[in-house]
């Protein structure tokens, strides 16, 4: 029975592995965007103050000052964080759906070749983002598992153990694959500079969210 399950799982891995990689990076992107969200609100306040000073100079634009209140500013800051996250999903997580398996040794070799052949630092932004967002995702999933187990079963040691196991499993089995696939994709990816601009703040946020 065990081998049956093993074989069945092996037969459908072409489908679940890319989905898992994509979800892992998406969870990491959300953890990073949540960190960015609070900072965005302060930025939105500054920009709104500048625009209010400008709009209030003319009577026909004056109603715009009252159009954007605190509610709208909070909503707008969250919307910016959301769009940022979805862009990161599109740039990093979605391409991971194209992951195609190969032999472990060949995969490592191909990864090293791709890294050597990377022509500019801009080409490495997406793989770096894949690494940090996947790691942030692994930490997030680990935390969710620990919290869910610990609060349901009231066994602290089990929660900690499950978190460590999930984190290790994801870091060893899924994160390197995400980076490899991202290296593959980065060779042909376009819009490198805009992608770097979008992803750079999220990389810092992803680092801050690691715990």
């Amino acid at each position: 029975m065990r081998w049956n399950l093993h074989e069945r799982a092996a037969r459908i891995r072409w489908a679940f592995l890319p989905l898992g990689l994509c979800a892992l990076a998406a969870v990491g992107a959300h953890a990073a965007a949540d960190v960015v969200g609070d900072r965005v609100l302060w930025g939105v306040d500054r920009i709104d103050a500048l625009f209010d000073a400008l709009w209030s100079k003319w009577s026909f634009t004056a109603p715009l000052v009252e159009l954007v209140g605190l509610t709208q500013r909070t909503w707008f800051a969250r919307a910016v964080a959301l769009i940022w996250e979805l862009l990161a999903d599109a740039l990093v997580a979605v391409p991971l759906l194209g992951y195609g398996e190969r032999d472990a040794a060949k995969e490592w070799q191909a990864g090293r070749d791709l890294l050597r052949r990377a022509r500019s630092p801009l080409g490495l932004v997406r793989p770096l983002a894949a690494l940090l967002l996947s790691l942030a995702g692994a930490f997030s999933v680990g935390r969710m598992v620990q919290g869910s187990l610990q609060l349901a079963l009231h066994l602290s040691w089990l929660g900690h153990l499950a978190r460590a196991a999930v984190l290790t499993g994801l870091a060893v089995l899924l994160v390197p694959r995400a980076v490899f696939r991202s290296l593959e994709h980065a060779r042909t990816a376009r819009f490198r500079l805009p992608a770097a601009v979008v992803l750079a703040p999220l990389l810092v946020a992803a680092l801050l969210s690691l715990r």
Partner: protein
Amino acid sequence: MKGRLPLLELFLSALCLWAGWYHTPAGALVRTVGAWFFRTRTTARPLLAYFGAGTLVPPRPPPFLAAPVPPAQALAYGAAAVLESEPAEVVPRLRSFSRRLGSDDAALLALFCGEDAALYALDEARSSTLDDLARALPPRAEACVARAAQAAMLGETYALGWPLPETVRITSAFGAREHPILGGWRLHSGVDLGTAIGTPVHAVAAGVVRRASSDGINGRILVLDHGRGVVTTYCHNDALLVRNGQRVEKGQVIARSGDSGRTTGPHLHYQIDLAGEPVDPLRFRARRPKTGNGATD
């Protein structure tokens, strides 16, 4: 890596899908589009509700107060308003949690989510603020975290002071009214306090200056962020005495009132926002200033 540990990989991928599907806006987007396509119902939250760990849901406005709130019991009054119970029932429970857990925010979390959840969050969070505690909890705790955050907001608001002496009259109350300059019915999102130019304006609680700017409508405007989702706004000042990002203490003079911006005369527009929604400041005060005719905006 072919052929290695497929069951473990399947399990880990399933965990990632579970986390991504239920706990990210991208998952919510896919679920919502799927529900629309297949004409089914979805349990996905609105996309923007996935930010801030569920701590920014505005509370229902509480009933008007019959008696003043003792400052030490403000948080219990906030919790009682959310629980729709009597403050006297909440005070001892909250005090006991606070003593055991060593933090008011953790005590609120214990009241709404259970002591186990609060202890776990205290162990895992970076600080004992409600935002950080909420982020440490698993997503299923979201509903109770939102209620705890609402109680914290209301409690913080019950503890607020008043920006001007109590003797200053209210010249325009909170609520829908005909606009004195533009005409037409609009929401007046704060209260107008008729006072002479140069009157010291005090911070109603400790906080950080989120905005100190000037425009032709609000005049010289100050926005203070007191934490726990509570923000106060002071408009039409003559002079601002603090700057962006500065920390202020309760009672500190932060501005001199005036008639800058679009007004009918000297007054202070004072506004309280809870989670971005304006509320009537008089709901949180048993002693209400007298009302009378005078300058407004």
